[in-house]
């Protein structure tokens, strides 16, 4: 009976509208935040930050973005890699041109730039639906990557088209570049992700979120009750791209430190993020995190266990690794097509009834 809301009466709608109406959920969240911002920074070593935590956080942000578009608004997109590139190159140009603005504002500006681009490429969604749209967004993917690869201006005419993130500080602490202490990088990303995850949750439970879901579930009916498809879809594209753009900015500036468009933002990037939200759970903020965690950690985990643990040779390990991932994906989908997030909810339901299941 650890998890039950009986006895928790809500005497106002505002209580009921609260983010986590059930007390236990609130405690869980506090615990998570505590771990994220206090425990992890104390424990995490460089390997954990650079190899696991940073990619996890950054992909979570990207997944959040895509989930808004695909999970909530039902528009499947495979342009994520391209949009991340927009964010990355925007922040690069800005960092070189206006370092005085400070890193976080620059990241947010890059987000807005990406939002604009995303909205532009969202226009076809007004006519094209389903997988047709999905494949059509690949046009964005390939075009954007080509653009950044071709136009010298984006890379400040670097001979090879590589961009390297110049060192920047926040509150006097380095947060980009090789000298930056891992913990600083981690805290920066964690903070941004936490804030915007909250924002996403708010949007999702508000009017905009409902309109998105209405379009997703039955666009015709939605239009007939006064949801403007144009506004709903484009706003979804804009918000989604905003998130993905910021993710791209952090991905390049904080995590990788240098990037080349053709490799760092290729089509696999788009697929990876899409997998994350499907496995994690479409239309679920929590799902975005679970999906990212799964696809970031699982491969490394398998690799470490096999290679370091059992001394399997790297090639075989890599092959087994990819097969295992594949099998796990299928297994998950069979067990719970609605993703890890749903599994979590079911688990909670169980706990709610336990030990008296009736």
């Amino acid at each position, binding site marked *: 009976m650890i998890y039950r809301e009986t006895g928790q009466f809500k005497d106002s709608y*505002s209580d*009921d*509208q609260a983010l986590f109406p059930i007390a236990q959920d609130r405690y869980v969240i506090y615990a998570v935040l505590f771990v994220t911002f206090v425990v992890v920074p104390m424990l995490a070593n460089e390997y954990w930050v650079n190899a696991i935590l940073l990619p996890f956080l950054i992909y979570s942000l990207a997944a959040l973005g895509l989930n808004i578009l695909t999970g909530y608004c039902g528009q499947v997109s495979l342009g994520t890699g391209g949009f991340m590139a927009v964010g990355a190159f925007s922040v690069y140009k800005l960092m070189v041109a206006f370092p005085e603005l400070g890193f976080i504002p620059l990241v947010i500006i890059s987000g807005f730039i990406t939002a604009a681009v995303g909205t532009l490429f969202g226009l076809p969604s007004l006519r094209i639906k389903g997988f047709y749209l999905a494949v059509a967004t690949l046009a964005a993917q390939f075009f954007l990557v080509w653009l950044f690869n071709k136009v010298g201006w984006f890379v400040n005419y670097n001979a090879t088209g590589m961009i390297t993130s110049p060192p920047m500080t926040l509150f006097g602490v380095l947060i980009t570049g090789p000298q930056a202490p891992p913990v600083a990088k981690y805290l920066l990303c964690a903070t941004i992700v936490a804030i915007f995850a909250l*924002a996403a949750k708010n949007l999702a439970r508000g009017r905009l979120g409902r309109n998105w*879901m209405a379009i997703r*579930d039955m666009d*015709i*009916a939605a239009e*007939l009750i006064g949801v403007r498809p144009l506004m709903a879809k484009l706003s979804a594209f804009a918000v989604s791209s905003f998130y993905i753009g910021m993710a791209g900015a952090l991905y390049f500036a904080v995590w990788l430190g240098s990037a080349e468009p053709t490799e760092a933002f290729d089509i696999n990037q788009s697929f990876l993020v899409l997998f994350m939200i499907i496995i994690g759970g479409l239309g679920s903020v929590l799902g975005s995190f679970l999906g990212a965690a799964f696809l970031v950690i699982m491969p490394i985990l398998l690799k470490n266990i096999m290679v370091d643990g059992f001394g399997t040779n790297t090639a075989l390990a890599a092959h087994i690794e990819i097969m295992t991932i594949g099998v796990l994906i299928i297994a998950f989908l069979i067990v719970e097509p609605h993703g890890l997030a749903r599994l979590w909810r079911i688990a909670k339901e169980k706990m709610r009834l336990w030990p008296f299941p009736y």
Partner: protein
Amino acid sequence: MTIDNLSTEVLLRVEDVSLNFGGVKALDGVSFDIRKGEIRAIIGPNGAGKSSMLNVINGFYHPQRGTITYKGQTRNQMRPYQAASQGIARTFQNIALFKGMSTLDNIMTGRNLKMKTNLFWQALYIGPARKEELENREAAEHIIDFLDIQAIRKKPVGKLPYGLQKRVELGRALAAEPELLLLDEPMAGMNSEEKEDMSRFIIDVNLEFGTTIALIEHDMSVVMDLSDRIVVLDYGRQLADGLPGEIRANKEVIEAYLGVSHD
């Protein structure tokens, strides 16, 4: 309900509307009006063009010929959301709820047009946005009480039994506080008591909120009890238009419609 409380102010007038899909005539020169505050029934056999008529009224279909005059302004085309924003709401023949969302959210979506705060406030979920959400939650809760569906407030509608889904859909339409409410077979596939409940709701809506209602229904007894006036369609043509009594008496109608079995 009865003739005397029937105002004469016309809310909506349909004039000589024709609609065809690739040669097939769905509507052919249909003309009738709906008066403020009345319950107007549209009947006819399957494929008579009843649903098409509603779709024309709220702008989902665009008639090739004819005009629609709503609240004094005449037009022959408008986008559905414009219709909605001018106070036309509707329910659907085969339920068109947002299956992934809870009852409450469905109804809140219905209030979409009443809500104005912008993205940024919503993202913060404080100040105006929060206030707005709460106000509209209040309103939504009224409808929930009115339809007596408190129990399923948080349930995803996809899993609800048919009768309840119909009810939620009505709720979603009411949430918009419409002037004109279009009901497309609100009682299809219901058992007799569910039908009774539904009829009661419709009448209450009409009386309490003074909402004008246009309804399509097959069940003659229901139609005859509920409606103030009835228009009969058959294969897109307008067969008759009048008070329930007159329709009941109308020979043509009896032959064309009441005669034949309707399923």
